């Protein structure tokens, strides 16, 4: 898998800073699992973080630091804790049925076990429980369908897992991420053949223009 659509640098910065809304971070992590290019950029952004932290002018709160220093010297004698055994990293998408790892806590590990809910003709969804602020949503859109034109009040980050769609911004296939600015309005159309499954994070409600869309909006419960 060799993604063609990547995370926006502003998303890379905030991911590395630990400053993304949780839902957005989960979708970004899903993309990172498949994208060496973006992983490299995250490393760069972490390097910036390290440099920023180092460049701070630290004012020494002397007394307290002396205590902490003594305590640290003491703790150096503690036995080395056993290194956490890293969970085996199955190559993503190697097993056809396996969901990307960052999604497991929210959607489970298997495509087969997903409990799809009907949302609109040709569209099914699952809304993740357990996130606090925004919306984390898995969508399955039937082949050859067009979604209503919509814009976003805030950020939308969408990672394509299966199938594909195209819109004014290009062709999006598995591994690609659509990192959309708030001023983008788009109308994705899924390609014929297979359903398109994607995972989206929204930090604000979708906006559908037009009376039809206004009727649809409550239906979509977004």
């Amino acid at each position: 898998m060799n993604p063609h659509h990547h995370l926006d640098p502003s998303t890379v910065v905030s991911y590395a800073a630990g400053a993304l809304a949780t839902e957005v971070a989960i979708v970004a992590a899903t993309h990172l699992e498949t994208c060496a290019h973006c992983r490299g950029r995250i490393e760069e952004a972490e390097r910036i973080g390290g440099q920023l932290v180092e460049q701070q002018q630290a004012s020494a709160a002397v007394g307290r630091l002396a205590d902490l220093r003594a305590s640290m010297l003491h703790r150096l004698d503690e036995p080395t804790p056993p290194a956490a055994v890293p969970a085996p990293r199955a190559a993503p998408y190697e097993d056809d049925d396996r969901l990307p790892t960052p999604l497991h806590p929210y959607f489970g590990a298997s495509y087969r076990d997903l409990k799809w809910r009907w949302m609109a003709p040709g569209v099914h969804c699952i809304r993740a429980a357990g996130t606090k602020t925004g919306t984390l949503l898995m969508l399955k859109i039937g082949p050859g369908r067009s979604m209503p034109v919509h814009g976003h009040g805030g950020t939308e980050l969408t990672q394509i897992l299966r199938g594909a769609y195209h819109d004014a911004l290009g062709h999006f296939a598995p591994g690609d991420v659509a990192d959309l600015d708030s001023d983008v309005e788009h109308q994705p159309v899924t390609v014929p053949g297979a359903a398109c499954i994607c995972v989206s994070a929204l930090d604000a409600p979708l906006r559908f223009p037009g009376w039809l869309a206004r009727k649809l909006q409550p239906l979509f419960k977004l």
Partner: protein
Amino acid sequence: MHPNGVDLRREAIENRSGTWHTMATDFTRRPSPPQAASPVAVPTSAPRDAHDWTGDMLAVARARDRASFMRIYDHFMPRLCLYLRGLGSPDAVAEELAQEALLRLWHRAAQYDPQHGAVSTWLFRIGRNLHIDRVRCEQGWVQVLDEAIPTNDEELARPFSAAEDYAEHTRLQRRIQDLPVIQARLMRMSYFEAKTHQEIADELQMPLGTVKSHLRRAFLRLQGQVRDQP
């Protein structure tokens, strides 16, 4: 040179007792147009050149050298505390997490790969993860963050020698100092206050797209990919 360079330097001298970061925090409490010349922009009293910690780190890794470790400790402990406090941890928690981060450095030094990032990057990553783990307490978040970034991926290993890497480090330091005021401010709100794009937009009453575009430019600039006029 930034047009406000002179003013900023004067500010920095007057504020010498204040830190870069506390200035940033104070400033954000006082709303003002984002374009206004800001005393937080650039750490103008130029910090001494980045120290190369590779030697000390290798001594810790290979010989469990305590003196080397404590040199790293003395340099980074107050900075990590400051960083973690800025993210919102109370003093005691910030100190505890900073100790924990440095202790991990001691215990895991053997895994340190000088070709794969500076000590500061390593500590930043550990500190950030400990903070998220402690504060956000959301299911799987840190796991997500950790697992998505393999640390010894061959395709990522950059072919730098330690010396070249150090030169790159110094270049980055200069570029940070040369960031335009507003870009520096937004980077700081991201890294030091962990504010989302939307939170920054709300706080500065700036369109979301503008926030993203400033952060985008700042990142590319620090990468040496763009050179826009401040």
